[in-house]
């Protein structure tokens, strides 16, 4: 039970309202039957959700974002697992530098990464390439994966691996049958947080997407700066729904508080 006084609880309620209000209004307005941004006071309608699914630009951007997030999260995990093993298990020259390098996208503003990649892509002739966009997203999601993996790897008991080795298992078998299962929560948690971050990324992507590779957040940003109708609310409500599913999965797999708070 709570030990907070009434003033504290009123304060807390206001904070919770503040945090939820913008998300709640988006979800409500998405169901409006009107042509303007208004609360659905005269019944609910799904017409704006239908409009989204019939809007080729939004549909295409959704698929772009989905593929981009799936690919970049998966590839980032593929690179991060060996790199995290190297950093946590070995002492070698350049270890500190590599560790800082892999975490650096957390402290470099995405805006700066965006303009920097725009310059690189212009020089190597990769402007508008989906493959390079995936690589760029791998860079920004890798730090999240690394943090969870480093925590997972340094938190486990090496003697289990040693036991397997001494019983005659090969190193590959030990990795597949012992190490990987033990760091699996870190791997899946890292993959999910990478997926969410890639799917939501706006500031870097806005510089390096072309009309055919525009992602959903970039499309929404462009759309919102020009016209605003309830379709924006419907897209936003869909994104909130997708995020909620991912958050629940994340909470199941790894524990949301551990991801958001524990690794800090």
């Amino acid at each position, binding site marked *: 039970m709570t030990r907070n006084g009434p003033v504290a609880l009123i304060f807390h309620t206001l904070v919770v309202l503040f945090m939820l209000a913008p998300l709640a209004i988006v979800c409500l307005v998405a169901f409006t039957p009107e042509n303007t941004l208004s609360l659905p006071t005269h019944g609910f309608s799904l017409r704006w959700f239908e409009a989204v699914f019939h809007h080729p630009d939004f549909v295409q951007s959704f698929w772009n974002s989905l593929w981009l997030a799936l690919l970049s999260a998966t590839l980032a995990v593929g690179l991060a697992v060996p790199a995290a093993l190297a950093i946590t298990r070995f002492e070698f020259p350049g270890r500190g530098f590599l560790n800082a390098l892999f975490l650096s996208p957390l402290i470099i503003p995405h805006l700066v990464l965006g303009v920097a990649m725009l310059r690189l892509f212009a020089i190597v002739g990769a402007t508008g390439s989906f493959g390079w966009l995936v690589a760029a997203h791998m860079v920004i999601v890798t730090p999240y994966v690394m943090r969870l993996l480093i925590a997972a790897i340094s938190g486990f008991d*090496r003697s289990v691996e040693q036991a397997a080795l001494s019983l005659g298992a090969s190193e590959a078998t030990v990795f597949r049958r012992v190490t990987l299962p033990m760091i699996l929560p870190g791997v899946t948690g890292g993959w999910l947080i990478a997926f969410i971050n890639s799917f939501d990324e706006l500031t870097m992507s806005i510089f390096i997407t072309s009309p055919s590779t525009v992602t959903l957040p970039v499309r929404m940003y462009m759309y919102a700066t020009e016209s*605003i109708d309830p379709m924006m609310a419907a897209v*936003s409500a869909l994104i909130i729904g997708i995020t909620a599913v991912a958050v629940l999965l994340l909470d199941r797999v790894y524990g949301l508080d551990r991801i958001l708070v524990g690794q800090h």
Partner: protein
Amino acid sequence: MTAQPSAAPSATPATAPDDDAPAARVRSAPLILSAPAALLFAALVLTPLFLTALLSFNEFDHMTGRTGGFTLEHYRSVLTDSYYLEIFLRTFRVSALATAICVVIGVPEAYILSRMGNPWRSVFLLVVLAPLLVSVVVRAFGWSMLLGPEGPINAALVALGVGRVRMLYGEGTVIVALVHVMLPFMVIPVWTSLQKLDPAVEQAALSFGASRATAIVRVVAPQILPGILSGSLIVFGLSASAFAIPGLLGGRRLKMVATVVYDQYLSDLNWPMGAAVAVLLLTANLIIMLTYHRVVEGHYRRRLG
């Protein structure tokens, strides 16, 4: 923690003199393991940042749009032009205010959360932190509806007889939305330091006759101060480079550093000028974040004795 993995029982004959072969393999193992990620980061972080730093010293021809040569002109004009100074000042002011408000809201909220019993504590921690994972465009859009001329807040003001208030496209809106986006970044470090705090210490202060306020100010506050400080630095750094919030809620007039870089790159096509602003932003951010790192490191070192 960095123990060498025990070399697998060597298959080479015991007589073989090259028993440093497994050692060499152990030495190269971390480099091989980290090579793919290192290559990616060298190609897509270090190289583009270096190219951008170079670009910021290139001359820009407004007629042809060509770049080349060497000049310090962009830095000179960014650092002396009143247009840019105003933008830097505004960015600083908005970020500082957002940070201050995050402290005022986030610190008590983290404290209240930490004093809750368990089902509620997890639920509300989720409620406060999960918006972090929702796209910032969605949240900006939510605020533009809440504060818009037809929004519920204006409707309430009209109903109360106050009349419509123009709230969108001002610094106030940008600050409110930034606080919404940044609040989790303040709650997280404060919550973390509260978790490390032994509640018995506060109890002891209370049982020795300290008032609740005294206990908070003299016992709790000093111990969570590093958390507040690191939260403030993160919030300030992220606010100063925020793009979507000023871009969507600031309107055309209210430029901040990030939206100016965007304009330079994608409207004016003056990449060298945009690069100079970006380099300055990165430098300022690195200074802030390294300070943060030092604060946190120092904090842990002190805690560990």
